[in-house]
């Protein structure tokens, strides 16, 4: 059972809002804090070891695998999840994802979008090689890679 001696309050900035969570284990990965404690289920569990990228979020704009990020290490860095990418699916990548009909099952797409958003922030017009580098850590079991590539190029073209 929970023991008071182990409990710790941790304050995080998530999608622009401050949230304080009480955790029994400061090593709890950010993924489970988001999903189980805060109800932000858009960030997905796929492997638990940083192999698949389904759990990708941004920490101060940089992509991070939340499944291997202990919540105690987040500190003051701003956490952005898929729910915070835009308030109304208006991010250029979300629009491009819809235009290119990217998702099949959709389970990996939160992570794909977050990885792609971090890429575009640094490389507004990425090459195929840039896309390979930035997105090869994100598995898609349904095989939507070709559409993801097209959607990233589309977003880059339409919003630069």
């Amino acid at each position, binding site marked *: 059972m929970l023991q008071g001696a182990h409990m710790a309050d941790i304050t995080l900035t998530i999608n622009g809002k401050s949230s304080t969570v009480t955790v*029994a*284990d400061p090593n*709890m990965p950010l993924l*489970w804090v988001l999903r189980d404690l805060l109800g932000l289920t858009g960030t997905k569990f796929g492997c*638990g070891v940083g192999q698949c990228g389904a759990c990708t979020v941004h920490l101060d704009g940089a992509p991070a695998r939340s499944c291997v990020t202990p919540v105690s290490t987040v500190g003051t860095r701003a956490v952005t999840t898929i729910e915070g990418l835009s308030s109304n699916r208006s991010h250029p990548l979300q629009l491009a994802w819809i235009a290119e009909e990217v998702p099949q099952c959709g389970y990996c797409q939160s992570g794909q979008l977050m990885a792609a958003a971090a890429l575009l922030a640094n490389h507004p017009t990425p090459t195929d090689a840039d896309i390979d580098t930035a997105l090869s850590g994100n598995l*898609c*079991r349904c095989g*939507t890679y070709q559409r993801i590539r097209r959607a990233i190029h589309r977003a880059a073209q339409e919003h630069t």
Partner: protein
Amino acid sequence: MDERQEQGNGTETEQGESTQPEQSSEPLTTLAVEEQEPHAPAKKRALSRRQFLVLSAVTGGVAGASLLIGFTVFNKQGQGKPGTTGKKPAAAFTPNVWVQIDANNTVTIWLGKSEMGQGVMTALPMLLAEELDADWSTVRVELAPADERYGDQLTDGSSSVNASYSGLRGAGAQARALLVAAAAQTWGVEQSTCRTEKGVVIHIPTGKRLVYGDLAGVASTLPLNPTTLASLKLKQPDQFTLIGTRVPRLDTPQKVDGSATFGLDIRRPGMRYATIARCPFLGGTLESFDSSKASAVPGVIQVVQVKSGVAVVAENTWAAIQGRAALNVTWNPGPNANLTSAQIRDQLEASVQKLVSAGGNAPAATTGKTLEATYETPYMPHAPLEPMNCTADVQSARCEVWAPTQHPQAAQQVAATESGLLTKDVTLHVTLMGGGFGRRAQTDFVAEAVQVSKAIGAPVQVVWTRDDDLKYDFYRPASYQHLSATLNAQGLPIAWSHSVAIPTSDGQTATDGADVPYNIPSISVTGSEINSAVRTGIWRSFNYSNAIFARESFLDEVAAASGLDPYQLRVSLLSDNPSFLALVQLAASKAGWGTPLPAGWGRGIAFCSFSAKTSSTAVAEVAEVSVEADGTARVQRVVCAVSCGLVVNPTIAESQIEGAIVEGLTVALNGQITVANGQIQQQNFHDYPLLRMNEMPTIEVYFLPSTDKPTGLGEPALPPIAPAVANAIFAATGRRIRRLPMQPAAQR
């Protein structure tokens, strides 16, 4: 806590409990529809509900039963039986279980199949909306719970569109006819003077118009007159306005903002999270366990034994994972403690040798050059990106389950058995799922969740880790195959033998997929099955991925031995099958077969006619592969030609082909499950590597134009890619690959 499940998530799909159309459970009549297909005589069928159920039972859901899905009509629309809790808006029109039109003009279509990425959430509503003449912008879709009124909800065998093609269109036509009748009654005109278009009934002589929503109230009071319904005629393909178009998928918006609710996203008040420690030895059992350390992990609530192992119940998933790691368990390894993949392979080889020496594989022709070769494939996991999971809430008199399942009715039945309740007291919600590939047609993960919930008396989500998902799968059978051929003076095969051995697997036989579409005078296909401790099950394309790899590779060997072009050889052997011939020619011409490639590159071709349930789809693929100096193959381009009847939604169809090819590339290049010391060895994506973005080829998809009834698309493009790639590597290097995977992770 996120109460998304109860509040609805504001997207097109909601799975709340008050969303099912209310229906009296007693059918009054059934709907007869003339089904008119271009190449089939018009059929008129009118069976009672009892007959329908009998027919389903006899045919196992094939050959005719599918026609009737959706045709059960209920006598009192909009009148829920006493005790039902649904909140039905006033004046909603619900002519059958598939569709409801509300006064606000919303058209709700229920999905009786499982959406796991293949697009049925859009393709199936398109069928109904087509005949309803609905305004697509007013259509929303809801996932139906397990309910026999939706017919057989098992979603497998690439069968959903094919099996639903007539039934859902009939359901739409029925609704449309009643809306026309309602408009005619409202205006006091003849129905024959009215037409429909995009959600509006129009009185032709005067141009008066009423939108469907405004007619819902009147339509809901009209009797479902069988005589009228029997005269319904479905559209001819040239009258389609939705079917055949690139209608945007209805599930896309919720899949780009994180709001889509998958099985793991279910959150219930008071819900616990659990992981289960299962025996790592194939066929082993639980000896004993000590839960003291697990119970001391912060957040762990309870440790309970269930049939499959020991469940650690906690306040969150992380605590459940940590608690399980702290659990002290002793397993009894059982009878397979020393089992290895090599032993299974040897058993399969011996089984095939028996077939061959029994003469089953002896070419009938005794003259001419003879070739023979053996091929091997490993066990394969499903590895959907969303690991297995299920949420259950067992109470004293009822049970509620949220399952990412391809087999809702079987899951409901299992939940009833495990909870000790009647099926009618189990509500099984079908969630979106992060891939299925056949794995979610099993019900083991549902049984576990129900057992744990019952044991702890609280709602619980049982979460499988990736390790669990890879280790406790129902794998595609491994195979060992022997082929031989006798060639005539021109180098063409005049006799062909193919012997296949696989571990036993429910619903599959060793010879599935080994049939030969080619014009060869003497053909022998034999199979045998061995028993193995490794669990097997259905897997995208069943045994075709085994048999087609061997058949199409060996045909390439024949071409090489005869000095023939592999494409021209197939042309010769398909000359008496114009449709297969056209398909192979389409693939070759789009691929530029015969045109020069860079040094170190090769081109390979493969063909597959895939049959499952009631439909067959043919696919021809050409792969271009570059081989680097160290032997690493890189697939650069894949051209795929498909013959699948009428394409309901080209965008979704292309996605299915792309997905099958990508999965087939994992099969070809890297994928395998191995056994050592009686245990499955693979643990995560480092030792079960999936194809990644940087390995992705360009894929081009071409469909043979057709207005025939649609056939399956989810699986058929998977089997031919491995042999197409292997044949391309042979073309580039002269190296023949007879064993998959080609580049196992351990050797990279």
